[in-house]
């Protein structure tokens, strides 16, 4: 069974008197354990697609089944619960809470899940250790580099053990080396834990790391291709040489 099943999904926005059809008849299936890159120009509808995939928004038409459950018509609160249970978000701007420690940031999704303070702490520490930040628990985002902040965000996305991680331009604010580090981390998670990752990017070399590339244009899926041999980000990192951060 596919993890994500979009069937004839459309999304309209009212823009003044006009209706903008941001998405038109999108069909998409993504299986568990896939690493999918979504590419497209700005205004192509890929952000709208991501908002729908992330249950941040509801489709105007069509159905969206996530892990076998139809989530397309759910209320705001129900979608909040779906996001909390099934989806981890990684954003371009990191979106960590300022003046809040890495540990507290990572604990946050568990707070809304009603996990006890002790279990929260234990799981958040484990998640931060997994992204290599076990020694940065008490640092606030301002005290961390961009790469470290993005790794805190990944830890926050993973701490609830969601089947799906949505990454929206996760490397957009990072330099090449740090970008490869983040990609290597995501690839490792897909390989080792069977995580499903959907990644939005406009950089071809980043998309090349995914096992499947979906191209969005004018609100439709223009191309959907499997990559025969995805680039291994860890190897790119080795080629860059020098000491990692």
């Amino acid at each position, binding site marked *: 069974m596919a993890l994500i099943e979009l069937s004839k999904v459309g999304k309209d926005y009212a823009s003044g008197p006009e209706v903008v059809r941001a998405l038109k008849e999108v069909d998409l299936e993504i299986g568990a354990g896939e690493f999918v890159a979504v590419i497209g120009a700005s205004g192509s509808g890929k*952000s709208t697609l991501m908002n729908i995939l992330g249950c941040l928004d509801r489709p105007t038409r069509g159905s969206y089944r996530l892990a076998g459950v139809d989530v397309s018509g759910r209320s705001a*609160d129900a979608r*909040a619960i779906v996001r909390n*249970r099934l989806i981890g978000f990684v954003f371009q701007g990191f*979106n960590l809470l300022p003046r809040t420690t890495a540990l507290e940031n990572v604990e946050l999704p568990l707070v809304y899940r009603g996990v006890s303070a002790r279990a929260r702490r234990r799981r958040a520490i484990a998640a931060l250790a997994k992204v290599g930040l076990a020694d940065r628990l008490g640092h606030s985002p301002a005290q961390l580099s961009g790469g470290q902040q993005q790794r805190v965000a990944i830890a926050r996305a993973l701490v609830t053990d969601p089947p799906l991680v949505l990454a929206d331009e996760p490397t957009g604010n990072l330099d090449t080396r740090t970008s490869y580090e983040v990609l290597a981390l995501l690839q490792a998670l897909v390989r080792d834990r069977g995580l499903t990752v959907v990644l939005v990017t406009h950089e071809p070399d980043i998309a090349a790391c995914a096992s499947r590339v979906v191209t969005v244009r004018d609100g439709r899926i223009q191309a959907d291709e499997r990559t025969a041999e995805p680039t291994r980000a860890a190897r790119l990192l080795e080629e860059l040489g020098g000491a990692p951060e």
Partner: protein
Amino acid sequence: MSSLRLLLSAFRLALVSVRKSGVRSLLTALGILIGVAAVTIVVALGEGATRAVQGTIDSMGENAFTVTPRSVARSGARGQRVPPLTEADAAALTEAPTVRHAAPLLSSLTQVSYRENNTAAEIYGTSLAFFDIRAWKVDDGALWSPEADSIGGSVCVIGRTLVQELFDGGDPVGQLLRIGRATLRVVGTLEPKGRSPFGQDQDNVILVPLATMRAKFYPTAPGQIHRVLLSADPEARPARVTEEITQILRQRHRLPDGVENDFRVRSQEEFRAMQQQVFGVLEVLLLSIATISLLVGGIGVMNIMLVSVAERTREIGIRMAIGARELDILLQFLLEAVLLCLLGGLAGALLAALAVGGFGQLTGWDMRVSWRALTVALATSSGIGVLFGFLPARRAAALDPIQALGRE
């Protein structure tokens, strides 16, 4: 159970964010602090003043009444005539079944001196019954004799203020006082009584037999007096006593039916009611002013919370993206407002307790912040938090996560 946990975690979040915006939280809470302090102080002042007045009204004596003349407009006569009350009226009133004692009273202001000391005092000409009615006790010496009571004598009883002012605290009993143009011997002093309900110093008094008063200080038409003081059976209803007094006096003054009373009977109960009315109005007035300052504080909280929601739109978006429901966000901001108000309220109550304590020390009144005032203050400040925090919190909870995250 899960809603309790929800509340607890929202409270924890609120606590964290209040702590993180330290100075701003402090300033916001300050508005509430002032409001709560004002309300608490006003309530404490009102309660203290009421207690003080109650005490002095009680000091008027038990179930006490006063009869005074009352001007009556007579048809055909020009102007008004004040019909006199007489000693005989006072004596006749003791015949009323519920009346225990009745004392005639003439009063005036006079100059009094002892050697080189010299002051002004109230002088009362009355009978020995006066002391029973008011329950004024002799401190030192004795009251004048029954003989002096009926025919007069050059004797007087003085209050504590005069003892202090004229004798520098020395023993006045047996000494001669120069009062007006007469010389009177002090036979006794009175226990201190403090101020009357109307602010008079009840210890700055000279009491003399009525006949002495009339002969030496206040010549009047035969038998005329200013007022009659009465005390009634403690069990007797004030209305019943008033009715008896009225009946006797109307008969004595030969008032035909349909003619108004030419005297007025006031009971202690009336004084009490009057006093309470005055204080009630005053308290309502002060309390409304204090409440306005609390309201202003609440508006300050709302203002800051609105700013805070606007500033933290992104934070709200993040929280929503990772699974916060509308209720989670609503509670977080609502509790933040309540927490601010509650902190301000607690500090305000503390400030009020200090201020009221200081004021009590200064005036010697029995002043304290009552539990009632404290409960009201804290309940009001949390209420204000809910009231003025709700709009900003609802605005926060109603945000669209996509817009809040700036993903458009």
